[in-house]
Protein backbone atom coordinates (compact mmCIF):
# COMPACT_ATOMS: atom_id res chain seq x y z
CA UNK A 1 0.00 0.00 0.00
CA UNK A 2 2.82 2.39 0.80
CA UNK A 3 4.35 1.57 -2.58
CA UNK A 4 1.02 2.33 -4.26
CA UNK A 5 0.60 5.69 -2.55
CA UNK A 6 4.26 6.54 -3.15
CA UNK A 7 3.86 6.04 -6.90
CA UNK A 8 0.56 7.95 -7.00
CA UNK A 9 2.21 10.79 -5.08
CA UNK A 10 5.23 10.83 -7.35
CA UNK A 11 3.07 10.85 -10.48
CA UNK A 12 0.98 13.77 -9.22
CA UNK A 13 3.92 15.77 -7.99
CA UNK A 14 5.96 15.19 -11.18
CA UNK A 15 2.97 16.36 -13.23
CA UNK A 16 2.93 19.75 -11.54
CA UNK A 17 6.69 20.38 -11.66
CA UNK A 18 8.54 21.97 -14.55
CA UNK A 19 7.64 20.19 -17.78
CA UNK A 20 5.20 17.92 -15.99
CA UNK A 21 2.36 18.56 -18.40
CA UNK A 22 -0.64 18.79 -16.07
CA UNK A 23 -1.05 22.52 -16.66
CA UNK A 24 -0.39 22.09 -20.37
CA UNK A 25 -3.24 19.59 -20.49
CA UNK A 26 -5.54 22.00 -18.72
CA UNK A 27 -4.61 24.85 -21.06
CA UNK A 28 -5.08 22.56 -24.06
CA UNK A 29 -8.57 21.75 -22.81
CA UNK A 30 -9.41 25.44 -22.39
CA UNK A 31 -8.13 26.16 -25.90
CA UNK A 32 -9.90 23.29 -27.65
CA UNK A 33 -13.25 24.07 -26.03
CA UNK A 34 -13.04 27.80 -26.55
CA UNK A 35 -12.26 27.34 -30.26
CA UNK A 36 -15.67 25.74 -30.83
CA UNK A 37 -17.84 28.84 -30.45
CA UNK A 38 -15.64 30.55 -33.04
CA UNK A 39 -16.10 27.72 -35.49
CA UNK A 40 -19.79 27.09 -34.89
CA UNK A 41 -20.79 30.75 -34.84
CA UNK A 42 -23.10 32.67 -32.54
CA UNK A 43 -25.99 30.20 -32.70
CA UNK A 44 -26.61 29.81 -28.96
CA UNK A 45 -29.13 27.01 -29.35
CA UNK A 46 -26.75 24.95 -31.44
CA UNK A 47 -23.92 25.60 -28.96
CA UNK A 48 -25.95 24.49 -25.99
CA UNK A 49 -27.03 21.39 -27.89
CA UNK A 50 -23.50 20.28 -28.80
CA UNK A 51 -21.88 21.75 -25.65
CA UNK A 52 -21.83 18.56 -23.55
CA UNK A 53 -20.26 16.60 -26.40
CA UNK A 54 -17.67 19.34 -26.97
CA UNK A 55 -16.65 19.22 -23.31
CA UNK A 56 -16.45 15.44 -23.35
CA UNK A 57 -14.32 15.40 -26.51
CA UNK A 58 -12.12 18.12 -25.02
CA UNK A 59 -11.46 15.96 -21.97
CA UNK A 60 -10.84 12.94 -24.16
CA UNK A 61 -8.25 14.79 -26.24
CA UNK A 62 -6.55 16.50 -23.29
CA UNK A 63 -6.09 13.18 -21.54
CA UNK A 64 -4.06 11.94 -24.50
CA UNK A 65 -1.39 14.58 -24.10
CA UNK A 66 0.60 13.10 -21.23
CA UNK A 67 0.39 9.45 -22.23
CA UNK A 68 3.82 9.24 -23.84
CA UNK A 69 5.45 10.28 -20.58
CA UNK A 70 3.35 8.11 -18.31
CA UNK A 71 5.61 5.09 -18.74
CA UNK A 72 8.05 6.33 -21.37
CA UNK A 73 10.14 8.21 -18.84
CA UNK A 74 10.41 5.22 -16.51
CA UNK A 75 11.35 3.10 -19.46
CA UNK A 76 14.13 5.51 -20.45
CA UNK A 77 15.75 6.11 -17.08
CA UNK A 78 15.71 2.48 -15.96
CA UNK A 79 13.01 2.96 -13.33
CA UNK A 80 10.82 0.35 -15.00
CA UNK A 81 13.51 -2.29 -14.49
CA UNK A 82 13.99 -1.29 -10.88
CA UNK A 83 10.25 -1.56 -10.29
CA UNK A 84 10.17 -5.02 -11.82
CA UNK A 85 13.12 -6.16 -9.69
CA UNK A 86 11.55 -4.67 -6.55
CA UNK A 87 8.97 -7.46 -6.58
CA UNK A 88 6.07 -5.01 -6.36
CA UNK A 89 3.36 -6.33 -8.75
CA UNK A 90 3.52 -4.50 -12.07
CA UNK A 91 -0.28 -4.18 -12.16
CA UNK A 92 -0.15 -2.21 -8.90
CA UNK A 93 2.45 0.09 -10.44
CA UNK A 94 0.36 0.60 -13.61
CA UNK A 95 -2.78 1.23 -11.56
CA UNK A 96 -0.94 3.71 -9.35
CA UNK A 97 0.49 5.59 -12.35
CA UNK A 98 -2.98 5.70 -13.98
CA UNK A 99 -4.59 6.95 -10.74
CA UNK A 100 -1.93 9.62 -10.38
CA UNK A 101 -2.40 10.56 -14.02
CA UNK A 102 -6.13 11.00 -13.50
CA UNK A 103 -5.63 13.05 -10.32
CA UNK A 104 -3.10 15.38 -11.95
CA UNK A 105 -4.37 15.55 -15.54
CA UNK A 106 -8.00 14.47 -15.37
CA UNK A 107 -9.44 16.00 -12.22
CA UNK A 108 -8.39 19.63 -12.94
CA UNK A 109 -9.94 19.38 -16.40
CA UNK A 110 -13.16 17.91 -15.02
CA UNK A 111 -13.36 20.75 -12.49
CA UNK A 112 -12.74 23.31 -15.22
CA UNK A 113 -15.46 21.84 -17.45
CA UNK A 114 -18.47 23.56 -15.80
CA UNK A 115 -16.71 26.92 -16.01
CA UNK A 116 -16.06 26.44 -19.71
CA UNK A 117 -19.60 25.19 -20.16
CA UNK A 118 -20.73 28.77 -19.58
CA UNK A 119 -19.26 29.94 -22.88
CA UNK A 120 -21.10 27.07 -24.60
CA UNK A 121 -24.41 28.40 -23.27
CA UNK A 122 -25.11 25.33 -21.09
CA UNK A 123 -27.94 25.49 -18.58
CA UNK A 124 -27.11 24.94 -14.89
CA UNK A 125 -28.63 21.47 -15.11
CA UNK A 126 -26.46 20.65 -18.12
CA UNK A 127 -23.35 21.96 -16.32
CA UNK A 128 -24.09 19.70 -13.39
CA UNK A 129 -24.79 16.71 -15.60
CA UNK A 130 -21.58 17.18 -17.62
CA UNK A 131 -19.47 17.48 -14.50
CA UNK A 132 -21.06 14.45 -12.88
CA UNK A 133 -20.66 12.25 -15.95
CA UNK A 134 -17.09 13.41 -16.44
CA UNK A 135 -16.29 12.59 -12.82
CA UNK A 136 -17.72 9.12 -13.29
CA UNK A 137 -16.33 8.45 -16.75
CA UNK A 138 -12.98 10.20 -17.09
CA UNK A 139 -11.14 7.68 -14.86
CA UNK A 140 -12.02 5.08 -17.50
CA UNK A 141 -10.35 7.32 -20.10
CA UNK A 142 -7.21 7.50 -17.93
CA UNK A 143 -7.18 3.72 -17.51
CA UNK A 144 -7.59 3.04 -21.23
CA UNK A 145 -4.96 5.67 -21.89
CA UNK A 146 -2.57 3.92 -19.53
CA UNK A 147 -2.78 0.76 -21.63
CA UNK A 148 -1.94 2.81 -24.73
CA UNK A 149 0.93 4.47 -22.87
CA UNK A 150 2.24 1.10 -21.72
CA UNK A 151 2.06 -0.40 -25.21
CA UNK A 152 4.02 2.46 -26.73
CA UNK A 153 6.44 3.10 -23.83
CA UNK A 154 9.51 1.90 -25.70
CA UNK A 155 8.82 3.71 -28.96
CA UNK A 156 10.13 7.02 -30.17
CA UNK A 157 7.16 9.36 -30.71
CA UNK A 158 5.03 6.81 -28.94
CA UNK A 159 2.56 9.49 -27.87
CA UNK A 160 1.03 9.81 -31.33
CA UNK A 161 0.64 6.07 -31.66
CA UNK A 162 -0.83 5.87 -28.17
CA UNK A 163 -3.45 8.46 -29.18
CA UNK A 164 -4.37 6.47 -32.27
CA UNK A 165 -4.67 3.30 -30.20
CA UNK A 166 -6.58 4.88 -27.35
CA UNK A 167 -9.16 7.02 -29.19
CA UNK A 168 -11.17 4.17 -30.77
CA UNK A 169 -11.19 2.29 -27.47
CA UNK A 170 -12.50 5.39 -25.71
CA UNK A 171 -15.50 5.78 -28.01
CA UNK A 172 -17.90 3.69 -25.87
CA UNK A 173 -17.08 5.84 -22.84
CA UNK A 174 -17.75 8.97 -24.87
CA UNK A 175 -21.06 7.60 -26.21
CA UNK A 176 -22.45 6.70 -22.81
CA UNK A 177 -21.09 9.85 -21.18
CA UNK A 178 -22.82 12.15 -23.64
CA UNK A 179 -25.93 9.93 -23.66
CA UNK A 180 -26.20 10.30 -19.89
CA UNK A 181 -25.95 14.10 -20.14
CA UNK A 182 -28.64 14.16 -22.83
CA UNK A 183 -30.74 11.87 -20.68
CA UNK A 184 -30.56 14.34 -17.82
CA UNK A 185 -31.66 17.19 -20.11
CA UNK A 186 -34.30 15.73 -22.45
CA UNK A 187 -37.15 14.08 -20.65
CA UNK A 188 -37.92 10.88 -22.55
CA UNK A 189 -34.27 9.83 -22.65
CA UNK A 190 -33.04 7.83 -19.65
CA UNK A 191 -30.24 9.18 -17.47
CA UNK A 192 -29.63 6.40 -15.00
CA UNK A 193 -29.02 3.56 -17.45
CA UNK A 194 -26.21 5.20 -19.47
CA UNK A 195 -24.77 6.70 -16.28
CA UNK A 196 -24.55 3.28 -14.65
CA UNK A 197 -22.94 1.83 -17.76
CA UNK A 198 -20.45 4.70 -17.67
CA UNK A 199 -19.63 3.89 -14.07
CA UNK A 200 -19.29 0.24 -15.02
CA UNK A 201 -16.74 1.21 -17.69
CA UNK A 202 -14.67 2.95 -15.04
CA UNK A 203 -14.78 -0.03 -12.67
CA UNK A 204 -14.20 -2.53 -15.44
CA UNK A 205 -11.24 -0.65 -16.89
CA UNK A 206 -9.73 -0.13 -13.42
CA UNK A 207 -9.47 -3.90 -13.13
CA UNK A 208 -8.49 -4.81 -16.68
CA UNK A 209 -6.22 -1.92 -17.67
CA UNK A 210 -3.58 -2.51 -14.96
CA UNK A 211 -3.31 -6.16 -15.94
CA UNK A 212 -3.10 -5.34 -19.66
CA UNK A 213 -0.67 -2.48 -19.07
CA UNK A 214 1.58 -4.63 -16.89
CA UNK A 215 1.69 -7.33 -19.55
CA UNK A 216 2.53 -4.74 -22.21
CA UNK A 217 5.36 -3.25 -20.15
CA UNK A 218 6.81 -6.66 -19.35
CA UNK A 219 6.76 -7.65 -23.02
CA UNK A 220 8.31 -4.34 -23.94
CA UNK A 221 11.31 -4.96 -21.68
CA UNK A 222 11.94 -8.45 -22.98
Amino acid at each position, binding site marked *: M*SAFSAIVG*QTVSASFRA*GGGALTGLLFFLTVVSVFPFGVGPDLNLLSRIGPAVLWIGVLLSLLLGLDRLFGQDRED*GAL*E*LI*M*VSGEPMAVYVFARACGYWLAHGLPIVLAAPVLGLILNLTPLALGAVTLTLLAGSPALAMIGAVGGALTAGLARGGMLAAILVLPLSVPVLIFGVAAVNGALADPDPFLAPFLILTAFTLFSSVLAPIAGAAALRLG*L*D
Partner: protein
Amino acid sequence: MPSQDFFPAVHVAAEALACERGGRPIFHGVSFELSGGEVLAIVGPNGAGKSSLLRVVAGLLHPAGGQVRISAGDAEEGKLHFLAYGDGLRSVFTVEENLKLWSKLYGGAADAGSIHDALEEVGLAHAMHLAARALSTGQRRRAGLARLLLSRRPVWLLDEPTSGLDKDGEAILGAMMSAHLAAGGAILAATHLALPVPPTRTMELI
Protein backbone atom coordinates in the same frame (compact mmCIF):
# COMPACT_ATOMS: atom_id res chain seq x y z
CA MET B 1 24.42 1.07 7.10
CA PRO B 2 26.20 -2.19 7.76
CA SER B 3 23.80 -4.18 9.85
CA GLN B 4 24.55 -6.76 12.47
CA ASP B 5 21.85 -9.09 11.16
CA PHE B 6 22.88 -11.86 8.87
CA PHE B 7 20.98 -12.80 5.77
CA PRO B 8 19.39 -16.25 5.88
CA ALA B 9 21.09 -18.87 3.72
CA VAL B 10 21.40 -17.32 0.27
CA HIS B 11 21.75 -19.44 -2.81
CA VAL B 12 21.55 -18.59 -6.48
CA ALA B 13 21.68 -21.40 -9.02
CA ALA B 14 21.54 -21.04 -12.78
CA GLU B 15 21.22 -24.12 -14.95
CA ALA B 16 22.03 -24.19 -18.64
CA LEU B 17 20.81 -20.65 -19.26
CA ALA B 18 20.40 -19.59 -22.85
CA CYS B 19 19.52 -16.14 -24.10
CA GLU B 20 18.41 -14.80 -27.46
CA ARG B 21 18.09 -11.19 -28.50
CA GLY B 22 16.24 -10.37 -31.69
CA GLY B 23 16.33 -14.00 -32.76
CA ARG B 24 20.13 -14.25 -32.42
CA PRO B 25 21.65 -16.45 -29.76
CA ILE B 26 23.77 -14.50 -27.27
CA PHE B 27 24.89 -17.30 -25.00
CA HIS B 28 23.81 -20.82 -24.10
CA GLY B 29 24.67 -23.45 -21.55
CA VAL B 30 25.60 -20.96 -18.83
CA SER B 31 25.45 -22.54 -15.37
CA PHE B 32 26.72 -21.22 -12.07
CA GLU B 33 26.12 -21.42 -8.37
CA LEU B 34 26.50 -18.61 -5.91
CA SER B 35 26.14 -18.73 -2.15
CA GLY B 36 26.09 -16.15 0.60
CA GLY B 37 29.44 -14.42 1.14
CA GLU B 38 30.57 -14.97 -2.44
CA VAL B 39 31.18 -12.70 -5.40
CA LEU B 40 30.85 -14.07 -8.90
CA ALA B 41 32.38 -11.83 -11.52
CA ILE B 42 31.11 -12.20 -15.09
CA VAL B 43 33.70 -11.00 -17.54
CA GLY B 44 33.90 -10.95 -21.29
CA PRO B 45 34.13 -8.58 -24.25
CA ASN B 46 31.41 -6.09 -25.19
CA GLY B 47 28.41 -7.87 -26.59
CA ALA B 48 29.23 -11.18 -24.91
CA GLY B 49 25.96 -11.02 -22.98
CA LYS B 50 27.13 -9.98 -19.51
CA SER B 51 24.29 -7.53 -19.04
CA SER B 52 21.80 -9.91 -20.65
CA LEU B 53 22.83 -12.62 -18.18
CA LEU B 54 22.24 -10.24 -15.26
CA ARG B 55 18.86 -9.26 -16.70
CA VAL B 56 17.89 -12.92 -17.05
CA VAL B 57 18.83 -13.54 -13.42
CA ALA B 58 16.90 -10.40 -12.42
CA GLY B 59 13.82 -11.73 -14.22
CA LEU B 60 13.79 -8.85 -16.70
CA LEU B 61 14.48 -11.12 -19.66
CA HIS B 62 12.97 -14.50 -20.35
CA PRO B 63 15.71 -17.06 -20.89
CA ALA B 64 15.48 -18.98 -24.14
CA GLY B 65 16.40 -22.05 -22.10
CA GLY B 66 17.41 -23.13 -18.63
CA GLN B 67 16.29 -21.69 -15.33
CA VAL B 68 17.39 -19.58 -12.40
CA ARG B 69 16.56 -20.38 -8.80
CA ILE B 70 17.16 -17.86 -6.08
CA SER B 71 16.55 -18.76 -2.46
CA ALA B 72 17.14 -16.67 0.62
CA GLY B 73 15.53 -18.22 3.66
CA ASP B 74 11.75 -18.09 3.41
CA ALA B 75 11.62 -14.87 1.42
CA GLU B 76 9.30 -15.13 -1.60
CA GLU B 77 9.77 -11.65 -2.96
CA GLY B 78 12.28 -8.88 -2.57
CA LYS B 79 15.49 -10.85 -2.76
CA LEU B 80 17.27 -8.80 -5.40
CA HIS B 81 18.94 -5.47 -5.87
CA PHE B 82 19.76 -4.40 -9.41
CA LEU B 83 22.31 -1.72 -10.18
CA ALA B 84 22.71 -0.91 -13.85
CA TYR B 85 23.14 1.97 -16.26
CA GLY B 86 19.55 3.11 -15.76
CA ASP B 87 19.53 4.62 -12.29
CA GLY B 88 15.83 5.50 -12.10
CA LEU B 89 16.53 9.02 -10.84
CA ARG B 90 13.90 11.54 -11.97
CA SER B 91 15.62 14.79 -12.79
CA VAL B 92 12.87 17.04 -11.37
CA PHE B 93 13.04 15.43 -7.93
CA THR B 94 15.70 15.90 -5.31
CA VAL B 95 18.05 13.07 -4.43
CA GLU B 96 16.15 12.59 -1.18
CA GLU B 97 12.77 12.37 -2.95
CA ASN B 98 14.13 9.88 -5.46
CA LEU B 99 15.66 7.66 -2.82
CA LYS B 100 12.54 7.85 -0.67
CA LEU B 101 10.44 6.44 -3.52
CA TRP B 102 12.87 3.58 -4.16
CA SER B 103 13.14 2.82 -0.49
CA LYS B 104 9.37 2.57 -0.19
CA LEU B 105 9.18 0.30 -3.24
CA TYR B 106 11.99 -1.88 -1.96
CA GLY B 107 10.61 -2.04 1.56
CA GLY B 108 13.49 -0.13 3.15
CA ALA B 109 13.81 2.78 5.53
CA ALA B 110 12.30 5.89 3.94
CA ASP B 111 12.80 8.49 6.69
CA ALA B 112 15.06 11.48 6.15
CA GLY B 113 17.55 10.27 8.78
CA SER B 114 18.15 6.91 7.10
CA ILE B 115 18.44 8.53 3.70
CA HIS B 116 20.94 11.01 5.09
CA ASP B 117 22.97 8.21 6.66
CA ALA B 118 23.03 6.24 3.41
CA LEU B 119 24.06 9.33 1.44
CA GLU B 120 26.72 10.11 4.05
CA GLU B 121 28.16 6.66 3.53
CA VAL B 122 28.46 7.15 -0.24
CA GLY B 123 29.79 10.69 0.19
CA LEU B 124 26.76 12.46 -1.21
CA ALA B 125 25.15 13.88 1.93
CA HIS B 126 25.73 17.44 0.75
CA ALA B 127 23.62 16.78 -2.36
CA MET B 128 20.63 15.39 -0.49
CA HIS B 129 18.39 18.34 -1.37
CA LEU B 130 19.75 18.92 -4.87
CA ALA B 131 17.61 18.12 -7.87
CA ALA B 132 18.86 14.95 -9.53
CA ARG B 133 19.40 16.83 -12.79
CA ALA B 134 22.22 18.73 -11.10
CA LEU B 135 24.20 15.56 -10.36
CA SER B 136 27.26 14.47 -12.32
CA THR B 137 27.57 10.94 -13.71
CA GLY B 138 29.63 9.81 -10.74
CA GLN B 139 27.22 11.38 -8.29
CA ARG B 140 24.32 9.60 -9.94
CA ARG B 141 26.20 6.33 -9.54
CA ARG B 142 26.73 7.11 -5.87
CA ALA B 143 23.03 7.84 -5.44
CA GLY B 144 22.43 4.40 -6.97
CA LEU B 145 24.75 2.90 -4.34
CA ALA B 146 22.80 4.66 -1.59
CA ARG B 147 19.68 2.91 -2.89
CA LEU B 148 21.36 -0.45 -2.24
CA LEU B 149 22.13 0.61 1.32
CA LEU B 150 18.63 1.81 2.17
CA SER B 151 16.85 -1.50 1.72
CA ARG B 152 18.60 -4.71 2.72
CA ARG B 153 18.36 -7.35 0.05
CA PRO B 154 20.44 -10.52 0.04
CA VAL B 155 21.45 -10.73 -3.63
CA TRP B 156 23.05 -7.82 -5.48
CA LEU B 157 23.17 -7.83 -9.26
CA LEU B 158 25.70 -5.22 -10.32
CA ASP B 159 26.17 -4.25 -13.96
CA GLU B 160 29.49 -2.46 -14.44
CA PRO B 161 29.38 -1.17 -10.84
CA THR B 162 32.64 0.76 -11.08
CA SER B 163 31.81 2.71 -14.23
CA GLY B 164 31.62 6.43 -13.65
CA LEU B 165 33.11 6.19 -10.14
CA ASP B 166 36.35 7.87 -9.10
CA LYS B 167 38.99 6.22 -6.85
CA ASP B 168 37.17 7.35 -3.75
CA GLY B 169 33.88 6.05 -5.13
CA GLU B 170 35.47 2.69 -5.89
CA ALA B 171 36.71 2.47 -2.32
CA ILE B 172 33.20 3.18 -1.06
CA LEU B 173 31.80 0.49 -3.39
CA GLY B 174 34.49 -1.91 -2.11
CA ALA B 175 33.57 -1.23 1.51
CA MET B 176 29.87 -1.71 0.73
CA MET B 177 30.52 -4.98 -1.06
CA SER B 178 32.71 -6.27 1.78
CA ALA B 179 30.05 -5.40 4.37
CA HIS B 180 27.38 -7.07 2.26
CA LEU B 181 29.45 -10.24 1.92
CA ALA B 182 30.29 -10.23 5.63
CA ALA B 183 26.54 -10.15 6.36
CA GLY B 184 26.08 -13.27 4.25
CA GLY B 185 24.88 -11.58 1.07
CA ALA B 186 25.82 -12.64 -2.45
CA ILE B 187 26.99 -10.49 -5.35
CA LEU B 188 26.81 -11.19 -9.06
CA ALA B 189 28.76 -8.55 -10.95
CA ALA B 190 29.18 -8.09 -14.69
CA THR B 191 32.26 -6.05 -15.40
CA HIS B 192 35.17 -5.56 -17.72
CA LEU B 193 37.14 -3.63 -15.09
CA ALA B 194 38.68 -4.90 -11.89
CA LEU B 195 36.23 -5.10 -9.00
CA PRO B 196 37.24 -3.34 -5.78
CA VAL B 197 36.70 -6.64 -3.95
CA PRO B 198 38.48 -9.73 -5.32
CA PRO B 199 35.82 -12.05 -6.76
CA THR B 200 35.40 -15.52 -5.28
CA ARG B 201 35.00 -16.90 -8.79
CA THR B 202 35.17 -15.51 -12.28
CA MET B 203 33.13 -16.69 -15.20
CA GLU B 204 34.00 -15.71 -18.72
CA LEU B 205 31.39 -15.26 -21.42
CA ILE B 206 32.59 -15.38 -25.01
